[in-house]
């Protein structure tokens, strides 16, 4: 009898549900056949309230006038005018090109550093495990700190890197790297590379550890050298993770203006202006919410198109 009392029982009537005892009615709910759905409903509500609804609103906003500094213009629908304006906006085109440069250079650098680190760390040597944990540290630093560390090190007057370059004879005097349109984006890429490559290293290392050691032994017996083993075993073994990690990083780099906002704010001039940053500036500095929305939509569409093509191409080459 005691055992039976603990068994979940469907109450005879709703009145039998004691709402003050959550253990009881939750237990009853959990035996319902839609339990699996009940569990995900809260998350769906959240996603809709804080992602889907705002995003949809943002898209609608891009077809409306909304300038907080010009209430006289009202908030009416203006069709595609923001999009048309964009085509004539030279800053948009600069930002588009810069976004491309920013993403391609950053991903390439992070990929190369991450792969080199992972290959070095994928060896059973004393101390390597500790190193592979320590090198993750930059990735966990906030953009605010990461950006300002480098701003400090690259400071034209006080920066340690300038001092080292002068001592090594590469420079005659301290250089303001972020004030020079020729170097600003390049240096920002290096900072991003330092900040972001541990993520690549982490995932590559995990994938490398998943490649059976016997394959390398078989390759040695078959007569393959180090390079051949790398091309024939290591790279194919990493293929899936490369596809995944590159797309994740591209999305992150396109969408987030954080690091550039902190390092350069888009300057000098528009030398480091990227789409996400330009959209952010339109909204936050110019309070032109409609135009900012349109910029974000264009960015999102470009990203989507890229992802679809990229995934199709990587699937084609996989077969």
């Amino acid at each position, binding site marked *: 009898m005691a055992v039976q009392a603990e068994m979940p029982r469907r109450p005879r009537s709703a009145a039998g549900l004691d709402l003050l005892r959550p253990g009881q009615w939750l237990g009853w709910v959990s035996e319902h056949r839609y339990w699996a759905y009940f569990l995900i409903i809260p998350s769906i509500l959240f996603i809709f309230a804080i992602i889907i609804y705002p995003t949809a609103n943002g898209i609608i906003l891009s077809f409306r006038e909304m300038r907080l500094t010009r209430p006289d213009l009202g908030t009416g629908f203006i069709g595609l005018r923001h999009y048309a304006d964009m085509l004539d906006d030279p800053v948009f085109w600069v930002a588009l090109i810069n976004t491309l440069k920013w993403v391609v250079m950053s991903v390439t650098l992070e990929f190369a550093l991450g792969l080199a680190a992972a290959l070095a760390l994928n060896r059973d040597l004393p101390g390597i495990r500790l190193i592979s944990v320590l090198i993750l540290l930059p990735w966990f630093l906030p953009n605010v700190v990461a950006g300002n560390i480098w701003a400090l090190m690259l400071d034209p007057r006080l920066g340690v890197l300038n001092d080292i370059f002068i001592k090594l004879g590469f420079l005659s005097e301290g250089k303001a790297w972020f004030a020079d349109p020729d170097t600003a984006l390049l240096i920002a890429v290096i900072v991003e590379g330092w900040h972001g490559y541990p993520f690549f290293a982490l995932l590559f290392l995990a994938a490398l550890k998943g490649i059976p050691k*016997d*394959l390398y*032994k078989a390759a040695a017996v*078959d*007569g393959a050298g180090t390079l*051949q083993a790398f091309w*024939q075993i290591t790279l*194919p073994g990493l293929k899936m993770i490369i596809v995944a990690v590159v797309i994740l990083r591209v999305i992150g780099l396109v969408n987030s203006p954080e690091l550039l906002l902190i390092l350069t704010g888009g300057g000098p001039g528009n030398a480091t202006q990227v789409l996400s940053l330009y959209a952010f500036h339109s909204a936050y500095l110019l309070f032109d919410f409609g135009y900012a929305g349109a910029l974000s939509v264009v960015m999102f569409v470009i990203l989507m198109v890229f992802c679809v093509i990229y995934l199709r191409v990587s699937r084609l080459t996989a077969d």
Partner: protein
Amino acid sequence: MEALRIKAVRKKFGPLEVLKGISLDLEEGDFLVLLGPSGCGKSTLLALIAGLEDITAGEIHIGDVIANDLHPRDRNIAMVFQSYALYPSMTVHANMAFGLKMRGVSTADQDEAVKRVADMLDIGHLLERKPGQLSGGQRQRVAMGRALVRDPMLFLFDEPLSNLDAKLRVQMRSEIKKLHNRLQTTVVYVTHDQVEAMTLATKIAVMQAGEIQQYAPPEEIYNRPANAFVAGFVGSPQMNFLPGRLERGNGDPRLRIEPANGATECTIPIGSLVESSLGNGEEVIVGIRPESIRPAGSSSTFTFDAAIELVEMTGADTLATFILGGHEMMARLPAEEKPALGDRIGLSFDPASVHLFDRHTTVRLN
């Protein structure tokens, strides 16, 4: 000519010595099985032959070259791995051709070699597939094929059948045997399965704790095991072991079995089984294979009564557990013998089939 000569090879991993001086010679065309329990060092020895691990001391000759410092690719070997180690990104054809390609063989010759071996192994229809699309048995064949396309001095097999189910394992075992009969290649084959060892080998090296316990043809390993370890490891069900004492009174020498659990003593007349050098009262281990024990009949030379403790029918024969002198023993009887539990039945064995080992060194005495 000797295809493989191993001279006093030692291997240490840090302070741990896993191979303690291994020496053996292998003739061309021989099929050597390294047999032993897990951790005995047999796979390490194979890795040393392949050049996948380096040798702490000693010499390995493959053909007429000292291979100690050679890279695996320069050792003129091919290897089949337990995990098969097929390259997942390559087709079956590319997998098999890889070793040839790395050695600069022309594409036409590669194709020809792959086709020949694929036909031999009946995997011609799989050549364009990737390893991920193959069943376990097919992968095993491809792994063998990859070794066979080349014509090396030595084939190395590292427990190649252990990932297959029982039926496939028996089938592949026969195929390997046929292949070897046909191609007369030299093989070193690692396994812990004594049936594989007995059926495939022309020579078996039984290993234990980093040492070779016995190196001999299979019949000799089975019929004249060099020590109690080999005797116990080879043969299924396991050989029965009894503590005994040699008695040389007047007349024929006898073995007195030391009783356990307060049972009555029993003695076995052994005639001329042992050398006269063994003295009176010598402490020995008496080994009797279960298949040597028969139901008592007219021609039996030594018979005794035994109480049946357990009867297991395998279909082909009946395994009967009984007590002799307080010791539990097993007999492998013909299937038509169906003793009931608790029966006392008459059993016998030929004293000439008894194995004697020194109680202290476990070395064979007869």
